[in-house]
C-alpha cells in the first residue's frame, strides 16, 4: 500500500496508533520477551482477531454475537484437521488397527477416513477452507436471521445456542472430531516441526502480520461510507431503510467479516498452541471474547487488540500469582471497566491522553512541513472527519 | 407559585439557559415563546428534573424544587407534558394514564379526564404506541393532569393536534385553571394559541428572556417580530 493510500485510510492520529502497535508487536515484544512469553502473546493475539471483528459487528453495527467462538473454532478445527492428517501418516500410527488415520478415529473403530476429512490433505484447500467455510456459515446464519429481522438480544441468544449446538455435536461425534479432547498432538506443518522455538517465532510474526492486515481492512471498512452506515444502523435501524439501504445485507456483510477474522484467529491459535478443542466454541469463550472487546473499547480497533492482550495477560499473571483468588481480580476488572470506562481503555485514552498526543503530533508535523515546505499535506479533508 | 431566579442549565460544557428569572403567579398561564433551539425545552426539562440544573434557584409554592428528583417534584405538585409526547408506547392508553396516578394514590382513572379527551376513552385498551400522533399528544396531556398538579408544564402541546381540538385545549386549559386553581407554563410556537390561553407572554432568545408582556397589552405583530429575526 502506498503512503497516500495509508494516509487516506488513517487519520494522522490513527496512523500513529498503528505505528505504535506495529512497533510494539514487531520490535518491542520479540526483543523484550523470551519465546515462552512471546508464544503466549501470540496466543492472546489470536483472540484479538475475534475482538477486532466484534468491534465492527458490535461496536459499529450493533450486532452482538455471543457465538464468535463458533467461527474461531471452525477456523481452528480446519487447520487442526490438516495438521492431524499430517501427524497421522501410516508410519507414526503403525500401532493402530487402521494405520494412517487419526488416532482418535482408530479408538472409535473407524476404519476409514471420513470423506469430509479427505480434502484436508491439501494445504491449499485448508487455507482456503479456513477462510471460506466460516464465512459461508456466517453468511447462512446472517441471511436467515437478518432477512427475518432478528436483532438485538434475540440474535445474541441465537448465536449462543448455535455455539451450544455445535459444541454438543462435536463432543458427541467423537469418532469424527476427537470429541471433548479435541484434536491434539499436532506436530508438523509440511514436514516442519511446529513445536520448535523457531517455528514459534515464525508463527508469531505471521500472526502479527495477519493481524495488522486485518486492522487495515477493518479500518478501511470503518472509514468508508459503509462504516457510517453501520453507525446509523445501530442508531436507528428502522430509519435507515428509508434512506434506501437494505439493512440485512449490511449486517450480513459485517457478520461475515467478523467471522472471517475470527476464523483466521482460530487457525493461528491451532498453529501456535498445537491443538484445538470444543472448549473454544462454547459459550464461555464466546462471552470472554466479547469482554476482550469491551475492555479495550468496542469502538476502537486498537483498543480491542490491547483489550485482548491485557485481559489475557492479566489472567495469566493473576493466576500465576494468586491461583486461588484470581477470579476476584478478573471479575472486579470487568465490572470496573464497564462502570468506569464505558468505552473501555480506548475511552480512557480518548479522555485523558488523546488531546495531548494530538497536539504533540501537530507540532511535530508542523516542524516537518516547515523544514520541508514544498511537501503538501495531503488528506486535510479527511482530518476533519 | 413558581419562582425561578438566576436559573442556569447546561449540557456538559455548554450552557443553554443563562440565568433566567421569572415568577408565575398562582392561577396564571404563562406562554414561553422563542425560535427553534433557543432553550425552551431545555428550561422545561430542567424544571422537571429530567436534566440537571447547573445553578440558580427554583421554588414551587414557596418550597425549593432545585436539585430534587423528578418524582419528588411531581409529589410537590409539578406535572409535565414533554415535547415529542414520550408516551409509554407498549402500554395501553389506560395504563399510560394510570402511571400519572402514582403520586395521588388513586387507583382508577378519574372520569373527567376521559370527558376532556373522549378519544382516549374509546381507545383505552389500545397500545399507546399505536395511537396517531395527535391522539398521543392528548394522552400525554391527560397523563400529566392525572397527577392533579398545581403547576403544569406544557412543552408545545398543540404540536400535531387538529385545529378544532387546539381550540378546545385552549378552552379546557383555562377551565381547568379555573376549576382546580392550576398554574400553567406553556411553550408555544403557534402565536394564536399562545395569545388565546396565556395571561402573559415571555420571549426567550439564546437562553435569556428578551421580552415580557401581559396579554392585554400585547399585539401579535410585536411578538411576531421578536420571533422572526
Amino acid at each position: 500500500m502506498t503512503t497516500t493510500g495509508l494516509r487516506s485510510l488513517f487519520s494522522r492520529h490513527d496512523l500513529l496508533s498503528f505505528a505504535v502497535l506495529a512497533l510494539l508487536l514487531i520490535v518491542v515484544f520479540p526483543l523484550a520477551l523470551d519465546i515462552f512469553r512471546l508464544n503466549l502473546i501470540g496466543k492472546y493475539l489470536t483472540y484479538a482477531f475475534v475482538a477486532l471483528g466484534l468491534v465492527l459487528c458490535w461496536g459499529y453495527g450493533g450486532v452482538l454475537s455471543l457465538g464468535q467462538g463458533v467461527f474461531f473454532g471452525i477456523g481452528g478445527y480446519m487447520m487442526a484437521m490438516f495438521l492431524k492428517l499430517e501427524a497421522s501418516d501410516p508410519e507414526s500410527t503403525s500401532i493402530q488397527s487402521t494405520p494412517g488415520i487419526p488416532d482418535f478415529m482408530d479408538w472409535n473403530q473407524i476404519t476409514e477416513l471420513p470423506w469430509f476429512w479427505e480434502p484436508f490433505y491439501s494445504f491449499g484447500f485448508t487455507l482456503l477452507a479456513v477462510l471460506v467455510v466460516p464465512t459461508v456459515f456466517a453468511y447462512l446464519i446472517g441471511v436467515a436471521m437478518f432477512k427475518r429481522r432478528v436483532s438485538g438480544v434475540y440474535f445474541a441468544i441465537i448465536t449462543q445456542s448455535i455455539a451450544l449446538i455445535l459444541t454438543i455435536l462435536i463432543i458427541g461425534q467423537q469418532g469424527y472430531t476427537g470429541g471433548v479432547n479435541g484434536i491434539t498432538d499436532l506436530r508438523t506443518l509440511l514436514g516442519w516441526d511446529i513445536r520448535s522455538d523457531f517455528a514459534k517465532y515464525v508463527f508469531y510474526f505471521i500472526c502479527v502480520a495477519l493481524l495488522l492486515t486485518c486492522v487495515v481492512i477493518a479500518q478501511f471498512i470503518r472509514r468508508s461510507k459503509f462504516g457510517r452506515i453501520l453507525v446509523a444502523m445501530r442508531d436507528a435501524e428502522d430509519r435507515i431503510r428509508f434512506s434506501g439501504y437494505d439493512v440485512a445485507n449490511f449486517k450480513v456483510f459485517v457478520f461475515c467479516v467478523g467471522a472471517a477474522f475470527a476464523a483466521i484467529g482460530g487457525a493461528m491459535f491451532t498453529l501456535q498452541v498445537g491443538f484445538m478443542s470444543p472448549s473454544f466454541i462454547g459459550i464461555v469463550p464466546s462471552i470472554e471474547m466479547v469482554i476482550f472487546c469491551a475492555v479495550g473499547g468496542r469502538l476502537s480497533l486498537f483498543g480491542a487488540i490491547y483489550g485482548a492482550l491485557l485481559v489475557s495477560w492479566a489472567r495469566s499473571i493473576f493466576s500465576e500469582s494468586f491461583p486461588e483468588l484470581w477470579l476476584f481480580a478478573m471479575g472486579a476488572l470487568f465490572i470496573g471497566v464497564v462502570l468506569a470506562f464505558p468505552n473501555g481503555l480506548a475511552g480512557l485514552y480518548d479522555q485523558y491522553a488523546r488531546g495531548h498526543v494530538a497536539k504533540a503530533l501537530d507540532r511535530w508535523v508542523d516542524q516537518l512541513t516547515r523544514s520541508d515546505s514544498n511537501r503538501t499535506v495531503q488528506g486535510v479533508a479527511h482530518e476533519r472527519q | 407559585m413558581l419562582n425561578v431566579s438566576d436559573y442556569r442549565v447546561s449540557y456538559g460544557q455548554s450552557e443553554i439557559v443563562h440565568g433566567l428569572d421569572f415568577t408565575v403567579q398562582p392561577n396564571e398561564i404563562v406562554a414561553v415563546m422563542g425560535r427553534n433551539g433557543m432553550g425552551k425545552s431545555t428550561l422545561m426539562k430542567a424544571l422537571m428534573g429530567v436534566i440537571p440544573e447547573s445553578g440558580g434557584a427554583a421554588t414551587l409554592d414557596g418550597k425549593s424544587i432545585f436539585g430534587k428528583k423528578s418524582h419528588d417534584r411531581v409529589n410537590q405538585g409539578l406535572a409535565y407534558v414533554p415535547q415529542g409526547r414520550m408516551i409509554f408506547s407498549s402500554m395501553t392508553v389506560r395504563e399510560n394514564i394510570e402511571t400519572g396516578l402514582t403520586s395521588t394514590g388513586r387507583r382508577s382513572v378519574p372520569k373527567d379526564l376521559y370527558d376532556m379527551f373522549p378519544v382516549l376513552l374509546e381507545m383505552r385498551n389500545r397500545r399507546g404506541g399505536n395511537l396517531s400522533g395527535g391522539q398521543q399528544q392528548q394522552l400525554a396531556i391527560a397523563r400529566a393532569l392525572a397527577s392533579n398538579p398545581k403547576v403544569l408544564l406544557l412543552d408545545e402541546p398543540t404540536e400535531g393536534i387538529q385545529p378544532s381540538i387546539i381550540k378546545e385545549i385552549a378552552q379546557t386549559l383555562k377551565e381547568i385553571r379555573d376549576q382546580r386553581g392550576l398554574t400553567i407554563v406553556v411553550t408555544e410556537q403557534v402565536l394564536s394559541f399562545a395569545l388565546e390561553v396565556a395571561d402573559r407572554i415571555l420571549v426567550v432568545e439564546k437562553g435569556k428572556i428578551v421580552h415580557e408582556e401581559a396579554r392585554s397589552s400585547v399585539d401579535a405583530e410585536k411578538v411576531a417580530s421578536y420571533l422572526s429575526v
Partner: protein
Amino acid sequence: QEVNTTGLAVTEDTVKVGILHSVTGTMAISETGSVQAEKLAIEQINASGGVLGRQIEYIQEDGASDWPTFAEKSRKLLRQDNVAAVFGCWTSASRKAVLPVFEQYNGMLYYPTFYEGLEQSPNVIYTGQEATQQILAGIDWVVDAKDAKTFYLLGSDYIWPRTSNKIARKHIDKLGLKVVGEEYYPLGHTQFNSVINKIKLRKPDVIFASVVGGSNVAFYKQLKAAGIDMTEESPLVLTISVTEDEILGIGGENVEGAYASMKYFQSLPNENNQAFVKAFKERWGDDIVIGDVTQAAYLGPWLWKAAVEKAGSFDVDKVREASPGIELTTAPEGYVKIHPNHHLWSKTRIGRAKVDGQYEIVYETDELIEPDPFPEGYQ
C-alpha cells in the same frame, strides 16, 4: 554423584516440582481433593527427610478448567520453572492438552484419574486405573454375585463414558448377556426424568452409570425421587464415577445402596489406609472425605520419590527408566506396582454406598489386575 545433569530446579537441599490442577472453574469441584493429597504426600516426604536428601518445594498452578491454560501452565512449569516432575491433570482433555508439552520438553507427569486408557506415554505415569481394570471386574461381580442379566448403560457425553461403555458392552456380549439401552447426555445436563422412565420400562438388572459432574447429582436425586430404590437392588446401580467426593454433593441418602467399582475406598480397613486417612484428616479437616482419585493422586509423589531414589538421580530419563517395577507397600490401597506400560497394577473393589456417604466394601479381586490400556478385543 551427579543427581541432576539436565538443568532441573534442583539445589543442594531442595528440588522443585509442580502441581497443576484446576482450582477454579467447573473442574475445581473434582480436582481439589487431588491437590490436597499431593500436598500431603509432599509434606510427609519432606518430614521423612525428602528425596535424595532434598526437600521438595512445589509450585502450584491453576489450570482453570480450561485446556489451553493447562498447556500454557505446563509449559511454564517445564520451561521456566524447570520442575523435576509434575503432579496434575484430571480430565482426559487436560491431559491430552499437556501431553505434547511433556513429550517435547521431556517432563514427567503423574496423572491420578481413572480414565479411558488408549494411551501410553513415556512421560506419564498413570496412577489411576485404566478402563478395563475398573470395569471388567465390576461387571463380572454383578453377574456372579447378583445374577445380573440385562444392563442399561448411561453416561455423560464425552470420551471416557463412551469408551467405558464400549468396553462394558463388549464384555457383556462376551458373557452372553444383554444391553437393553445405552444413552448419553451432554455435560452439565440436569434433567434425567426421561431416561429414568425408559429405565423403568425396560427393567434392566443393572444400571451401569458413568455420569459425571453436576449432572451426577441431578441424576441420583431424580432417580431416587422417581421411586427407584437402590437399596432393594432391582435394578441395581453400578457406577464407575461416584467416589466419596461425589457422594458429598449427591447426598448419602440419594445413593444409598448403589455399587461402585474402583480400586480404593476410604473405608478400606488396612493399616496403611488408616494411617493415611488419619493424616489426611489432620491436615485438611475432620469432615473431609477421600475418594479413589484422591488416593491415586497421593501415590504420585511417593512413586516419584521411589523412582528417583532407585535411579539415584532426578534426571527424567533415569527416573523413567527406573519406574517400571517400582512398588509401594505403604500405599493406602494396599500394594501397587508400576507396570512397564506406566500404569499401575491394582486390585479392583466393589463398594456399596451407605447413607453416611461411605462405601462398605463388599468384594475385592484376589489378584492384582494387570493394566491393559490397549485392550485386545475391547476396541
